[in-house]
């Protein structure tokens, strides 16, 4: 019996050994194995957050993400190969037919052949279809074989998202691109430009994470270990799709007809600095098409004559010149000014002109003299003025990668003086169209400089997270009188000066300045005959609503290169269209919707409106100037009284007026008034802004 017990004890000892070993594995090496288990069995999977959408101001999608699907097939899938490929043989034909029927890119036989080859090769990652839309994917899901599920069909679906711009070219460069590319290390990176880049972190959102446990049926999320992705925020821009379209179309037409190198047009809301449109078109070097290939609006170049307004402002503000001061420009269009000879592009109408006329006719000689007179003794002082006009620093627009401007040294020496004089008419300084526009807008805005901006608000699922407000850069860039004088001279440019021809017949007043610059940057030299034509200004001049700059760079040896020839017509087209669509329509629209007391629109005699408001002791914003006729409308719950444009031979808007006022105004202008209905004027048979003959009949609809 002892033998039996010996064996029994042996077994018991072995059992204890097993138990001991298990204890060691658990207690001593436990951590090691457990962590190894976790790392083998679990994986953290990123859940992609949806990238936010970029909207226009009125809520149109400018750039958004759509899901797209890459479909692969694993021909080694167990289900597919089961029983010597029974499933494969049974369904592959109908699958091929379904593919051919739906996608129509190959015949069923071709599909079948490719499948057979892949099946024979045992391809585990056969690319079936790439980048298909959700609709196609939905259809594909119902195909024979595929609908049997992933295990049986071996179908592999990879989802990604594709960035699309529903409006295509419109403001493409400014809205930006968000494109994935593979860098040198083989990692997928994103290349962004424009708003996509500036607001990348906001648009991107925060990817979520999910812990999944692998089991043979696939991966199963582990409960409680999931961080939900935070989808990207939406960016609501200040851009207006229609205005953008107007600007882009006008610019494109001019570029195409003149085969220019590139062009940019920016439209800004005067009071706020909102960028309503920004078009950047560059010529494709290989053909004659144009594409939004760079943000030319931010590119710094020598601006040419558009800078003269800065010289003018500085000289007047310093007090060395007064409006009406005379300067001798000669009749040879060539004159020694201080240390250098300056030439004008053409002979001036008079050898001696007022300072305003120097601006209006864009005399380099005249402005050179103005500059020298003001700052000849201390060129450095001019820099302070340039700083006040924010021409020495990057534009504050909410885009990243804005290039810095450049100013030639202004020292108290010969070189400094040379630079000063040169700078007075727009060379030896590099600024971007955006900076110039900001300056012109400040003049339009009565001296208050606001920062240009592109983003109105950041919204998260429709809820505003961040609301951008207009930002004032300078309360007053110059004394009010100086601003007034500048406004006058800019109007003079259009009425008398270099812009006279182009803007003839525009039914509202435009103020602005032409500019033509020889271009010397990069490989281009002054001698190459490349010009940069521009026009910067605002409209309507009496009550500026929008500022705009158009800059076009010609190709070498182009026949047309003056700002007045190239840029001003684009400006004109933009201004007239925007004026008729927005400045004019703004008013009746708000009147029609005037059901509540927060929104109203009245028109009538300026004096009468003022009297009524004064009697009722209602505070109001007075933008009347000296107009006899006025409109009153609500702006931020405050009545604003604005003068109406009433000029001879141009039909005024009488919408919102009472019948008495309307008849008085129109009959004074020589119209015969017919009336329908009663109440306030709702419609007029002659559209505002159009011309009319004396004695013509106009029908007013009252409601």
């Amino acid at each position, binding site marked *: *019996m002892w*033998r*039996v*017990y010996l*064996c*029994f004890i042996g*077994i*018991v000892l*072995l*059992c204890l*050994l*097993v*138990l001991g*070993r*298990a*204890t060691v*594995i*658990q207690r001593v*090496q*436990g*951590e*090691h*194995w*457990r962590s*190894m*288990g976790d790392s*083998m*069995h679990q994986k953290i999977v990123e859940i992609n957050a949806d990238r936010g959408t970029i909207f226009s101001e009125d809520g149109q999608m400018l750039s958004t993400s759509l899901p797209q699907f890459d479909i692969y097939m694993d021909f080694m899938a*167990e289900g597919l190969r089961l029983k010597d490929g029974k499933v494969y043989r049974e369904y592959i034909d109908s699958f091929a037919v379904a593919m051919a029927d739906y996608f129509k890119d190959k015949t069923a036989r071709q599909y079948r052949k490719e499948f057979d080859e892949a099946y024979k090769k045992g391809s585990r990652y056969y690319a079936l279809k790439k980048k298909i839309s959700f609709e196609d994917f939905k259809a594909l899901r119902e195909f024979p074989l595929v609908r049997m599920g992933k*295990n049986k069909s071996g179908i592999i679906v990879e989802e990604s998202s594709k960035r699309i711009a529903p409006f295509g070219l419109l403001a493409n460069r400014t809205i930006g691109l968000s494109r994935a590319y593979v860098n040198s290390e083989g990692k997928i990176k994103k290349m962004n430009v424009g708003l996509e880049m500036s607001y990348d972190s906001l648009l991107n959102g925060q990817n979520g994470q999910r812990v999944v*446990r*692998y*089991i*043979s*049926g696939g991966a199963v999320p582990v409960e409680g270990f999931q961080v939900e992705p935070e989808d990207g925020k939406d960016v609501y821009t200040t851009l207006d799709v229609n205005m953008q379209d107007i600007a882009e179309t006008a610019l494109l037409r001019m570029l195409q007809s003149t085969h220019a190198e590139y062009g940019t047009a920016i439209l800004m809301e005067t009071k706020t600095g909102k960028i309503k449109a920004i078009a950047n078109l560059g010529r494709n070097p290989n053909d004659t098409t144009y594409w939004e290939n760079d943000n030319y609006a931010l590119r710094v170049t020598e601006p040419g004559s558009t800078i003269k307004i800065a010289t003018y402002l500085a000289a007047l503000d310093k007090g060395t010149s007064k409006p009406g001061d005379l300067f001798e420009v000669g009749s040879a269009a060539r004159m020694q000014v201080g240390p250098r000879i300056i030439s004008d592009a053409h002979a001036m109408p008079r050898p001696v002109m007022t300072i305003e006329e120097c601006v209006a006719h864009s005399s380099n000689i005249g402005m050179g003299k103005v500059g020298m007179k003001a700052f000849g003794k201390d060129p450095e002082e001019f820099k302070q003025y340039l700083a006040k006009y924010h021409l020495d620093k990057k534009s504050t627009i909410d885009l990243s990668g804005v290039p810095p401007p450049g100013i030639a040294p202004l020292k108290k020496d010969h070189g400094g003086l040379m630079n000063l004089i040169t700078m007075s008419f727009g060379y030896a300084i590099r600024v971007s169209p955006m900076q110039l526009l900001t300056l012109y807008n400040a003049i339009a805005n009565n001296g208050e400089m606001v920062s240009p901006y592109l983003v109105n608000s950041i919204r998260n699922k429709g809820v505003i997270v961040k609301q951008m407000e207009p930002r004032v850069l300078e309360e007053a860039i110059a004394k009010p009188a100086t601003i007034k004088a500048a406004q006058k001279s800019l109007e003079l440019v259009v009425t008398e000066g270099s812009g006279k021809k182009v803007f003839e017949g525009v039914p509202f007043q435009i103020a602005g300045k032409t500019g033509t610059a020889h271009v010397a940057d990069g490989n281009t030299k002054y001698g190459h005959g490349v010009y940069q034509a521009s026009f910067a200004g605002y409209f309507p001049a009496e009550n500026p609503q929008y500022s705009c700059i158009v800059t076009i760079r010609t190709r070498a040896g182009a026949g047309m290169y003056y700002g007045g020839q190239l840029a001003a017509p684009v400006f004109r087209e933009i201004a007239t269209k925007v004026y008729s669509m927005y400045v004019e329509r703004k008013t009746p629209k708000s009147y029609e919707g005037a059901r509540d007391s927060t929104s109203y629109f009245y028109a009538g005699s300026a004096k009468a409106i003022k009297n009524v408001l004064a009697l009722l002791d209602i505070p109001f914003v007075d933008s009347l100037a000296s107009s006899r006729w006025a409109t009153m409308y609500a702006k931020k719950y405050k009545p604003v009284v604005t003068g109406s444009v009433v000029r001879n031979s141009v039909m005024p808007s009488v919408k919102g007026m009472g019948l008495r006022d309307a008849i008085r105004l129109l009959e004074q202008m020589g119209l015969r008034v017919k009336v329908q209905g009663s109440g306030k004027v709702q419609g007029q048979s002659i559209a505002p802004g159009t011309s009319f003959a004396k004695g013509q009949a106009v029908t007013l609809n009252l409601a």
Partner: protein
Amino acid sequence: MAATAEIGSEEKAAKVSSWKGGLDQHARGDKVIWALVVLLTLVSLLAVYSATGSLAYKKYKGNTEVYLFKQVVFILLGFAIVYFAHRVNYTIYSKVARILFILSIPLLAYTLFFGVKMNEGSRWIRVPFINMTMQTSDLAKLALFMYLARLLSRKQQVIKSFKKGFLPVIIPIGITCLLIAPANLSTALLLGASCMMLLFIGRVSVKHLLLVAGLALVPIMMLVMAAVVRHNSGKDVDTTETTQAVKKATGGLTTRVDTWIGRVENFMYGGKEADNDEMYQVNQAKIAIAKGGFVGVGPGNSTTRDYLPQAYNDFIFAIIIEEYGLIGGAFILFIYIVFLYRCIRVFKRCPFAFGAFLALGLSFTLAIQAVANMAVTVNLFPVTGVTLPLVSMGGSSFLFTCLAIGIILSVSRNVENLERPQLAAEEVSEEVVEVEIAEKTNA
């Protein structure tokens, strides 16, 4: 012969007369052993149900009940086998043993050359009609033990003699082990060790046993040496390439030898090749054990089961520890020890050498198999293809285990009957009684 006929008729009568008497009347033998068997099958039901999750996903779209159902069927079948086996008078097994053993030899040979390949080794044959694969070594093992019990009981007088006692006993062991070895070395070694133990208990000369052990050690040492040499010489890439070439070229035995060397190497040097299948299994088993803690993660909560390829079979002990903790594992060990202890009691009380050796041999081999399986799980032994008796998911080994337990219970039942004097006379033929009592006293 007449006596057996009588027993048969009596059994029939008993069946007809008193079904109402319940199991007590019909299921005789050691009650504790019965209870342990029920307990183990219940454990197997729980563990298999939990562990087949991933298999169910692969084959039945996650319908895990399929395996639960299968296991239930196996258990019912197993109980039927236990029941019928234990109703048979064990003396019949003495006669059957010889036939079975002689039958098992050509069967093993057939398996070796024409068997179904599963997990590399050719260990299985497909049984006609019921279309189930069967591991012939399971049958051979049972046959060998029964035959050994018979031989040992008959040769007790001459057991110390080399020619008359030792040789006749060792030769069948040798034949069976050598036939199993090529396909399933671990089973062969385990079987050999169990046989040695049985011979030791059966009073075979220790000198002779040492001789056999020495002989068996030679190939084992060679394997170890080969593993050492291969580990030191070859970078993995080369070896795997060459081995694969060898596998393709020669197939058969060479491949198996290669697998053995690989296993020994892995066991000795640990998992440098982490992607190696067996290292993977062992590591997963360790992960399961480590995750289990003292009381386990609870039934059905195992996570390792999805990664452990043989979670429901060879490595079920790891899943048991993961779900029921060290306590659960210890409990399973305890069950086997109690089972062995109860079988030793049967051995002690059995007056006849054949019955005693039968019960002892079968119980020891089951216990050894159980301990071997668990030792593999905790990485005390290199990976073998040994199941955990009664707990691993069904299959032929489950049914053969049931048969073995049935036979043990048959002995136990006869012992109980012997202890009830009025039945004793009827049950056993006098001739046999005399001979066996004499043998027993010698032992």
